[in-house]
């Protein structure tokens, strides 16, 4: 992480110093946590063909143990999926259909996040929390910052900060006080028709209880079937390899 007052002073001199410092403090608090877990809700806006904006939602839980373990569950009545990274491989479980797939991954969580997206098209929401340097990650393309002062989010008094980039705008609500926890996060896809937004609401944080090793180890549920994982460039008919009989514990 860049040293405060050095790199920061050079890179963000035309921005609201107080707002940047609030974000830096929250990111540093997060980066220094060897492990953490969150319980959150995510919302995505979608524009229908006749211009109606609708919101779809998921509940999610995420557990991270730095530097190389990760587990998240993303679910709704329509869909239930789990993602595990154990330092070696990424496993995706479609709980609704009881299908899973695994692929080998780099040993570094940052690289896994990028490889999951670039190679397999996997969007891991709120994954900015899990990167090794959340502040540099967040500020990478920021062009402007505004501090809107204090505002409530999920019952917590928070700093409301708004950032603008060329590709997106984003806002963050950071809990006021000794624990600068992120409580709300909004991405506005301002260059898309209708400017649809992604919203994350973090109801619970766990930074004190160590996460059990078993949480990061994927164990196929009863009857789960392994299927191939297709890369983003896959466009040929699949060969039926990699599929196996249902597995029973």
């Amino acid at each position, binding site marked *: 992480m860049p040293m405060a007052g050095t790199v920061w002073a050079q890179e963000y001199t035309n921005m609201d110093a107080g707002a940047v410092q609030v974000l830096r403090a929250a990111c540093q608090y997060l980066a220094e946590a060897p492990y953490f877990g969150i319980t959150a809700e995510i919302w995505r806006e979608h524009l229908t063909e006749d211009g109606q904006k609708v919101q779809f939602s998921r509940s999610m839980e995420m557990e991270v143990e730095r530097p190389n373990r990760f587990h998240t569950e993303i679910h709704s009545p329509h*869909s239930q999926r789990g993602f595990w990274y154990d330092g070696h491989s990424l496993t995706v479980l479609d709980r609704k259909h009881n299908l899973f*797939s695994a692929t080998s991954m780099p040993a570094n969580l940052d690289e896994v996040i990028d490889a999951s997206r670039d190679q397999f098209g996997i969007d891991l929401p709120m994954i900015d929390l899990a990167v090794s340097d959340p502040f540099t990650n967040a500020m990478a393309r920021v062009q402007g910052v505004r501090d809107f002062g204090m505002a409530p989010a999920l019952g917590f008094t928070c700093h409301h900060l708004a950032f603008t980039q060329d590709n997106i705008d984003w806002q963050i609500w950071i809990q006021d006080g000794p624990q600068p926890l992120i409580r709300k996060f909004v991405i506005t896809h301002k260059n898309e028709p209708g400017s649809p937004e992604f919203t994350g609401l973090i109801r619970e944080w766990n930074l004190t209880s160590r996460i059990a090793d078993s949480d990061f180890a994927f164990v196929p549920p009863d009857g789960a079937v392994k299927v191939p994982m297709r890369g983003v460039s*896959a466009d040929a008919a699949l060969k039926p390899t990699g599929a196996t009989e249902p597995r029973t514990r």
Partner: protein
Amino acid sequence: MRQKCFDRPGRKLGLLVCACGLISFPAQAQWGSIRGNNHGEHEMRGAVHTPMRGEHERSPAFEEHRVLPQTGRQVEHERREVEPARRWVEGPREARDFDFDEDRRHGFFWSHVPRGAFYATLPTGYLPIYVGGNPYYYYEGAYYQPEASGYVAVTPPVGAVVPQLPPGAEPVTAGQTTYYYAGGTFYLPQSQGLVVVPPPLGVTVSSLPPGATPVYIRGGLYYQYNGVYFMPSIQDGVTVYTTVQP
């Protein structure tokens, strides 16, 4: 196979719509993280384009027969189409979170019409069609046949021709041929309209046809429907199904 361009059933307007999709809406990935948005937009695999109302064309055959040439009267079934249908054709499979497609599918009319269900009346705006001399009724991807005191939702009959794609139809390609898939039914654009065809081999779809059943062949899981096998895999973090010959 992936659809490389937003395709329309053989009309110049289709090319225009496609071009608008590429030019008017510079595509970006809609990821649920700053990192995803900052890193993912350069790896877009296609243009994002949600067609807006009015962009969808009708089949020329149906346009040409909207008015009876001898009398100037409107054809009965065309008059029933006065109420505009919700029209929604999926764009190409671009980079985004496909998990929410499950929610979107629930918003389409056909997702609420289980095959075999009985209805006392037809939905307003239905279209009567004949396949092999048998009467059917069509509305937004759902097909019905008459019964003694009402109508029953049925499997879309191969050979049925409808004037426009059902809402939510997703383009899928096999070789050089583009099909559209909605509610478990494949449509092939033809000069007379959109024709219901058997599932083609080598296409990947986001959901199984209703009634597909799991089978194991040489240790591999497939889903069988009307003699066609769908092989599951995980792509973009969600389950997809490819028609294969096991």
